[in-house]
């Protein structure tokens, strides 16, 4: 595979064209651009840092193997997140970690208490706890909307559903999250 110096910031579509043409620098640029937010998405899905880190690499491996199937103009981010979500769901199914994910999240947050301001830590714990309890589709929809700022069309692409269904899942997720936090979170 050839490697070129990228003179300017490539768009995702341009980078994918580069990847398909054998440009390893384009692949590296895509990885650097998306790895942090992709990790955040995966972490909130699987509830485990090591697994989420592994899945970031695995996701980009799938991106590379599917490079011929990517169609420019259809949105790289939703395509990437859809691949990542499918991998995460497979991981959850195969390892049956749905319940363990919740336990890990609880343990992990408890172990971090010394290093965080307690008030902020409590907020983090409660939100994390509430998120982990949401049905996966609502959790994904909420994360993609609020955390990653995708629009509903893109969320639908990631979740494999219509734009309307993506909107409905986000709506339900907001209600579920609000209900889960009701006893703790009050606004003046």
């Amino acid at each position, binding site marked *: 595979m050839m490697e070129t110096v990228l003179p300017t910031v490539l768009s995702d579509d341009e980078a994918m064209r580069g990847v398909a043409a054998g440009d390893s620098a384009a692949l590296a640029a895509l990885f650097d651009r998306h790895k942090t937010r992709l990790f955040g998405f995966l972490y909130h899905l699987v509830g485990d840092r090591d697994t989420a880190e592994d899945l970031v690499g695995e996701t980009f491996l799938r991106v590379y193997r599917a490079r011929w199937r990517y169609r420019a103009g259809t949105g790289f981010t939703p395509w990437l997140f859809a691949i990542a979500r499918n991998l995460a769901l497979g991981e959850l199914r195969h390892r049956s970690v749905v319940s363990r994910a919740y336990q890990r999240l609880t343990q992990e947050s408890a172990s971090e208490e010394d290093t965080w301001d307690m008030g902020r830590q409590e907020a983090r714990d409660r939100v994390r706890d509430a998120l982990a309890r949401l049905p*996966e589709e609502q959790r994904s929809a909420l994360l993609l909307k609020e955390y990653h700022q995708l629009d509903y069309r893109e969320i639908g692409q990631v979740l494999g559903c219509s734009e309307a269904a993506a909107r409905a899942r986000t709506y339900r997720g907001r209600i579920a999250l609000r209900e889960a936090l009701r006893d703790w979170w009050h606004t003046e």
Partner: protein
Amino acid sequence: MAMNRIRFPNLLKHIHSECRRVIRLLPMLPDGGLSAADAAFVEAHLAGCDACRREAQAFLGLGELLRQETAPDADLPTGAQAAAWILDRGDRTTGRRGDRAKALLSPRLLVPALAVLAGVAWLLFRPVAHSPRRPVAAWSVARIAGAPTVGADRIHSTGRLQVGQWLETDAASRARLSVADIGQVDVEPNTRIRLVETRPNEHRLHLARGAMEARVSAPPHLFFVETPSAVAVDMGCAYTLQVDDLGRSLLRVTLGWVAFVLNGRESIVPAGAACATRPGIGPGTPYFEDAPAALRKALARLDFEQGGAPALAVVLAEADLPDTLTLWHLLARVPEGLRGQVYDRLTELVTPPTGVSRDGVLRLDPGMLDRWKSAIEETW
């Protein structure tokens, strides 16, 4: 540990009807997705209602609260390191198309390839009599666990399921069917299932009893599963289907949409929803699995036990915004004398679009029902 209730269970029981309407609109506030009329209504209400105003602030602040819950720092490689790792593994299994093409043109492979091509040409064009039988259509079967059987033959690793044959699993067996090239069906323990048809425009199974999970990636109306009391029509989706010894079935959709039909009675079931059937009746009314238990029980009485007006009253009282799925189906199913109650509850949840009138809906005008369905589908 999944949270099934997604409604406002405690809040809505004790508040005024105007607040109820506003509360249901508040989750849409962060998107700015309210219609002009709804936005004006909400704004006027919030000016005089402290409780709803606090609730509105909560929804508006939910995104920020969520964004504060950041993921921990990750130990991720640099792009260059990742690219090297990916290329090592990616090329090992797939290779670039150009590389493959070059490899195929090498003399080492070209001569055998030409020989194979010549053989294929001979097979295609040799002067032989037409075969009296077309090849028997079949799907591949893979054993997942135990000892599934096709006919009298035990599947040890992989096998074939021909049209007309039964695949059976006992309490310890599971198997996976490849649905031509469009998907997979996992056959669960204690299941009896038959391949009815497989051809380019139709693939059809008959599930006599037991359970299966289907994952299909194909255009709608290509994959069908018959049960004793309804037919599941795939519309690009994943779902599970169970049939008990009495022929009763339960469809649960996890992705996309499934239509459950029998004798002109149709239930459209989206992801997250379920639908039961009964022999002699057909598909019941679909419902979201996180709907209140009281709604689900009342719906079963309404669908299968002649629950009538009392059961309908419970369904209507318990219905929340997502339950417009259930209410829309009920419009055409309840007796004419009860239809107005369903219409009135639906309008409380979703305003009918222009051109949809009460009279038209009550006489089941197909155009109006479709238009309204398009509007309320957004809540499913």
